[in-house]
């Protein structure tokens, strides 16, 4: 088995692949950009000629750190439409020129944010095969691609113009119908779609993606040399949250669960909950609420943002990883990282999370938005026998290399079909 040590092999003469990410891991550390980056590295590691193109706002070009074979595509956030996902023509032209200048034969977009759905058609029209990896539901949901209703924050079972208009009354049913048609038309020339989870794949197929063009490939994570399986401390149970700290990720539910746990001083004395991540883009009131909770609950601590390259080590300090997201999720990279670190996951029992974490086997589920149930699962998890049993059943996550090999197989099929 090849291990990805950043060992960049020489390209072996097949068509150049461009991996497009809506941002770069040196700027943000969300799952989509991490997955895209891991794929890029994995393809290079198995000898494929791959480049990474990351969209970057003109204002942040000084902050992006690019490695070899990595390119920044300047975009302007103020001139992008988030309803129909339309980018100005100059951005689309720039992308096309870059692809043509780099002799790209296959374009794997991990997002259409900042370039617009029309860019996919532009690239296909230029004779370049297009594969779209879908990390969330933005193609069918205007609410940040979360499939969660507004303002009620309920899970959306499936969009429709009338339902979307209820979430966004400032936009008409007709606009949402046009959005649907516009996106569908733009996705027509895409040769293949990749989803990291069956859950998301089925949701998209329900909304019209052709089943025969949809593949499911799990997000791979880079291997690590050593894994600390043993618990750090016998006396205290440690639960770690990893990721962006925002309401969608259920951090509010976690804070409420802390209030429930605090009512049992004996239990509270045996647990530690550590939050890792950043607050970029969050409201002042949410940050204030978080800080107040950290002050109030001695067992809750905020350990700041983290470098994704260190996440394995950070997870090794925990006994469990907590993922309390309030939206469906797809295939959270955090779950794969937790499996790599041999740590069971406590997560909301819905969507992609429920697909990746089997309740009672590889982790524990709790009821969405229910802090009392989350607190109950945390209390239950603080048990040696259970922890050992769950840990033993954890699957081995796909490595970046393995992910890249599976992607390469899809790319080969696409290339063959287009000849």
């Amino acid at each position: 088995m090849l291990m990805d040590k950043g060992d960049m092999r020489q390209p072996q003469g097949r068509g150049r692949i461009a991996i497009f990410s809506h941002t770069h891991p040196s700027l943000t550390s969300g799952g989509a950009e991490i997955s895209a980056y891991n794929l890029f590295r994995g393809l290079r590691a198995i000898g494929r000629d791959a480049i990474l193109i990351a969209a970057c706002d003109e204002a942040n070009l000084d902050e992006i750190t690019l490695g070899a074979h990595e390119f920044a595509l300047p975009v302007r956030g103020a001139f992008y439409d988030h309803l129909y996902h339309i980018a100005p023509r100059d951005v689309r032209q720039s992308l096309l020129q870059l692809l043509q200048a780099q002799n790209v034969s296959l374009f794997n977009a991990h997002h259409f944010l900042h370039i617009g759905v029309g860019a996919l058609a532009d690239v296909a029209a230029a004779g370049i095969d297009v594969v779209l990896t879908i990390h969330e539901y933005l193609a069918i949901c205007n609410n940040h691609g979360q499939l969660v209703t507004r303002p009620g924050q309920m899970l959306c079972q499936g969009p429709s113009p009338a339902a979307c208009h209820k979430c966004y009354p400032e936009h008409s049913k007709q606009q949402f119908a046009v959005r649907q048609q516009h996106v569908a038309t733009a996705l027509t020339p895409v040769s293949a779609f990749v989803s990291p989870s069956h859950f998301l794949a089925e949701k998209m197929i329900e909304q019209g993606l052709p089943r025969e063009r949809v593949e499911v490939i799990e997000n791979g994570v880079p291997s690590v040399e050593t894994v600390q399986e043993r618990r750090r401390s016998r006396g205290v149970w440690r639960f770690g949250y990893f990721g962006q700290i925002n309401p969608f990720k259920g951090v509010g539910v976690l804070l409420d669960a802390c209030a429930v746990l605090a009512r049992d001083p004996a239990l509270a004395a045996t647990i530690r909950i550590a939050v890792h991540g950043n607050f970029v883009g969050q409201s002042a009131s949410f940050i204030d609420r978080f800080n107040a909770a950290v002050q109030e609950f001695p067992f809750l601590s905020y350990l700041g943002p983290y470098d994704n390259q260190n996440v394995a080590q950070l997870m090794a300090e925990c006994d469990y990883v907590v993922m309390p997201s309030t939206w469906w999720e797809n295939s959270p990279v955090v779950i794969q990282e937790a499996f790599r670190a041999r740590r069971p996951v406590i997560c909301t029992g819905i969507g992609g999370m429920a697909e990746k974490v089997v309740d009672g086997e590889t982790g524990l589920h709790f009821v969405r938005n229910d802090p009392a149930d989350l607190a109950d699962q945390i209390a239950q998890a603080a048990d040696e026998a259970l922890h050992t049993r769950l840990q033993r059943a954890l699957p081995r996550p796909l490595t970046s290399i393995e992910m890249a090999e599976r992607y390469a197989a899809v790319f080969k099929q696409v290339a063959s079909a287009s000849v």
Partner: protein
Amino acid sequence: MAAEPVEIGDAMHGLVEQLHEVEGVQGWVLDLAEPQRILDVELWAGTLCLARTQTGLERPDVCSSVGLPCRPGFRFGDEAGRAIKDAAAQGHLGDLHVRVQGSSRLEAECPVRTLEMIRPISPPTDLGSDRLRATLNQHASDAMPLVNEATASTPSNQIGYLEGIWTSESGVTWMVGWMIEDTVTDRPVIIVDEDRYSGGMAISLAPRADLAANAKAFVAVIQTDWLVKINMPPQIVLADGSGRYLEPVRPAPLMEPEAVLSIARDTLSRASGPHRAAMLKMLEANRYLPADRLGSNRVQVDEVAVLPGFGAFVNGWALSSNRQASRFVLKVGSHTVRAVELCQSRFARSDVAELLPNVEQALKTAGFVTLFPGPIDQAALDQLSLEVVWQDGTSTIVEVPPVTVRVLGLTSSFDAICRLYPAIEAERFFPELAYHAARFAQVQARSVRGYECNPVRSSLLLAAPRQSADIFLLFDQALAHAAFLPEDWGISIIASPDEHRGLVLTLFAQLQHAAGRPCSLFFTGDAAPTSDVIEEVAATLSSERIAWVASHILLTATGWKDVASDEGTFALLAIDDPAGGPPPALGLDAFVADLARWRRLCAAAPPRIGGIQLPPQGKPIPVIANAAVSLGPAPGSPFTLKINEAVRRAYG
């Protein structure tokens, strides 16, 4: 592409060929069911019927065209031209059109002509303070040669009494008193005490209860070198050779500034005349003017909503400790307008209770909303005053603070009137109000300026939507489909200069660079773009054929392909609901037409907020299927929809 015809029927068939106040009004019309019947034909301007005539003139060309014996020609006499000019001079608004009595408008093949275009620019009706002083100085100069022309002061020449006199530090002499009513409001005078001095005098007259019917209280300002002497009150002799004069009261007129100026203020509050406003300004500038002592009557104007051409709605309250308000009069410069009592609403104003205790009964009807009909000179909106006539005949006049005056459709929306009249559509004046509102909105909507103009024979006019997302979509689709247009077609974007202006400019630059067709950009005044701009845009681009797509409509790929393929003079683009609802009714939200055909449609259609509606047609209209989709309901509040419907029922 196959065109689907649409049936819209009307028995009258005619055309206005000439429509001008000097060149004449003529055309032809016949009833296809009874072609030989003589028809009564009316000339209208807005909601005013100006003249009538009948058909009966021979028109062999028309008879040959329709294949029926008939005498469909009509021509209005010279009195029609005079009626048009008179209506314009009186300040009425509206477009000229012709209709068969009891039927809808006739199409016209001549340009639209409105009363606003014809009305002469009226001179200012009021003199500012500086102009007044200049006039008085001139009168004083004119009086100088007459100073020493002695005239006998016979009692029969006395026309009134001076009751108060005071000279201000600026040299202006104020006089109050009463006099036989006179129409001359400024003149040279001679001031006579132990010597004789020339002066220029201006007066404003007001009613006073203790005077005979032909006498009025007056306030006068005199520009003169004469200085008042306490022990020698003067006579004021009119320097017109008549010997008429004003005599000082005995033992002496009031000379304290506070007393004289208080009387002057009270009189001016009830006065009329061209110098009133200027005199009020001069009076207010006086530091000796005492604070107003509150009487038992209180009046306040809270809001005035003016609809140009129609009238003004005044909202306020009138409260007295011992009388009821009977009627209301609005003074606009030198012009007065009585309120329409049947359109008046009286209601409780408990919020003013603290001003007058123990008047609970009066408070129940203290508030009022009332209509003053008729054209209101917009130049005089800062010079409004309201007279409340109490039941005993006395009155209270208050200045209307300019800050309370709004112009409906310009500085506040038409919807604002609903606050004053919650059931306004049930009011008898609503149809006429609706007409003037629609007319005014149409005039505002026609204002458009070219930002980038590239003349082209045929132009696709795309109104920019209100939301930025739809603006992106519009340009995205234009870039994608511009190549479908023939090379002699151009694309014109019409946008309002709102917060999306920068976005429109950015995207337009990209469209212009890549479309491969002549592209133009226009910005409206501040109204949202409607089909009212078509005439101006087409004229600027020298276009003879236009296609119009409203801001809430999006052309489909089929629409882009087919919009230029129809060869008729006029075709509608069918609009579907992408959300699966019933399609909107066919209309002028999306169409293609020769400019001449568009002009005839405009002439035949009554005004409408948001662009004219398709008037009844005599024959089916081609429809281009699958050409467009709706992005949502047409812009416009529920109230503007009611306005449009009222105009359609009454005038269209």
